[in-house]
Structures are given as C-alpha cells and as structure tokens.
C-alpha cells in the first residue's frame, strides 16, 4: 500500500466515504426509500441526495480554497450542515 502514498487526512477521508456508503446501504436495506420532491427542483431518492450533497460539498470546498483564506475545517462544517439539510428536506 506504500506506493499509494497514503496520508492520515486522505485515509480518514476515504474511511468517511466508505462508512457513509455502508451506512446508506444498510439504511436502504432496513427501510427502502421512496422517490420524493423537496426543495430541490427534481424528485430524488436518498442516494440521489447523497450524490448531490457530496458533489456540491466538493465544489464548496474548492470555492473556499480558491476564494478565501479561511481554515478548510469551516468549509467542512458548512458542508456537514448542508448535507443534513439536503438529506432531510432536499
């Protein structure tokens, strides 16, 4: 695995993604979701909202990095909040 040049933050990032995917799969098996329409302009399933949330979070992080000198943890906290809002009311 050394050839992959792992670092602690990237390892934590991928563990986080893996945990989210396993969690969402388990949630889906226990309680299958139904497509619904929230504040997003399209009907989405839980998986759709996760995908939209992760993709938009990536762009939020990039915008923070490019446009501000604020600590990246602020962007992560904002994204976590955004994910919760999106998953619940999106």
């Amino acid at each position, binding site marked *: 695995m050394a*050839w*992959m*040049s*792992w*670092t602690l*933050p*990237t390892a934590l*990032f*991928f563990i986080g993604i893996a945990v989210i995917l396993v969690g969402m799969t388990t949630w889906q098996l226990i309680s299958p979701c139904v497509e619904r329409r929230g504040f997003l302009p*399209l009907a989405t399933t839980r998986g759709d909202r996760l*995908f939209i949330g992760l*993709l938009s979070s*990536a*762009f939020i992080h*990039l915008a923070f*990095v*490019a446009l501000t000198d604020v600590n*990246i943890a602020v962007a992560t906290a904002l994204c976590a909040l955004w994910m919760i809002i999106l998953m619940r009311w999106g």
Partner: protein
Amino acid sequence: MQTKVENNKAWFLVMPVFLIVAFSAIIPLMTVVNYSVQDIFDPYTRYFVGTEWFKQVMLDSRLHEALLRQFIYSFTILIIEVPLGICVALMMPTKGRGASLALILVAIPLLIPWNVVGTIWQIFGRADIGLFGAFMSSIGVDYNYASDPTDAWLTVVLMDVWHWTPLVALLCYSGLRAIPEVYYQAARIDQASRWAVFRYIQLPKLTNVLIIGVLLRFMDSFMIYTEPFVLTGGGPGSSTTFLSQSLVQQAIGQFDLGPAAAFSLVYFLIILLVCWVFYTTIMNMQKDK
C-alpha cells in the same frame, strides 16, 4: 404455481466488474487524491502540503483558459455532431445490400486509431500536399492551421466531426431500426407529414440512444488529447491546448505530480457535474413526457 424467487445472487455476478473497476479506476483515483495533498520529489520523499495545490490550480489563469477552450470545443462538436448524426442515420438505407454497405462506410472513421486520425488531418490540411488545404487555397482562402488559431480550431473541430459523427449516426440508426412498423402505419393512416413523423415518432423514440450519444461524446470530447496533440500540438501558441494536454504537460512534462493530481481531481469533478446535469435534465424531460 411457481413463484418468483428473490435473492441477492446477482450481486455475485456483478463482482468481477466491480473488481475490474476497482483496479482500473477506484484505486488509481484514490492514489491521485493522496498525491494531490503532497509535494512529491521521489517515491520515498514527499511532504504533506494540505490544500496548497488546489489553491494554485484554482487560481491558475492558463487552466482557466484551457477550461474555457474545452467547454467551447465540447459544446461546438455536440451542436454539430448530434443533428448531423441524426440526419445521416435518417438518410441511411434500411434494407438490402445498400444498408450493409452504408453501415460499413459510416463505421470506417471509428476504426481508425486516434493518433492516425491526427496524422491524416495533419496531411489533409496542408496547403502543399493536402487535399483540404489545397482546396482552401484554390478558392482563395488563406488557410494555415499551423499558424492561424481560427484555422487550427476549424481543423480540430472538422477532424472530430469526421471521426465521431459516425458514432452518433450508428446509435441513431439502431434506435430508428427499433421503432415498430405500426407507428409508421398509424402515421400513414393519419397522413402525417415527414416532419411530423420525425418530430412525434422518431425523435421521441431516439431519446434513449441520444442520451448515450450525448454523454459519450461529451465525455470523450472533454477528455480529448491525442488528435489535437498530433494535429496542432496545442498551438499555434496555446490556442488549441485543451485540459488534458495542460494536464499531461504538468504531470509528465514537468513531473509536478502534486499540482497535476489536484488538477486531475478538479477536472474529474467538472466532468462528473456536467454529466450529472446532462443525465438528470434528459431523464426529467423524458419523465415529463
């Protein structure tokens, strides 16, 4: 009465694909993420730099220009190739030897390797020995793709249209052949015009293959490297330097693995976003119908 058995055995059948994708895409992508946060000097000497490379990439004006060129290029070829592909498919014969011959002729450009396509057009566009270059000169157009950015763009776009319109045409042709004859019979009974048949029967039935066609052509054109590299080398100046070429210059030319990895991830996210927007829009249009 036999009831349908439901189980998860299908997942085991998908496992080989998952393993192949893991080795060919997921693990390399994870490695790129790891590279993007480090300054790498050699396999044993590397330093964690956090988001520094991302900041550098996001503020790099050369990359902004390459991104703009890339979008203009991709949308230009989509605007040309999709309608042209539909027209070619509509004009292709449907029965007999003519159909087989047309299929073979249309498919020929798809069989030619990308670097050969670049070489063909490099020669084709030359005013001294190339047919296209000589033709342009003969009608009084001062055409030189090696020194004029507009001519270089024209040649790169024409080359892509020549190479990839057949893909859209073949996809549409297969879509058209899948339309049951009863639709056309109904249209004849209603005395529908040729346009009405196209607008209300053929085009709606082509939606699925067009989704695939647009997505494939967008992704391919957005990642284009070999043909413009062989034809113009990204020039004149940097007028035909697209994203992948900038990336290769950075990663292999300068061996800046960290910034190149950050660039790759931004590039990947843009492709992912645009493909998702395309896919969602088209699927929603279909649902609304």
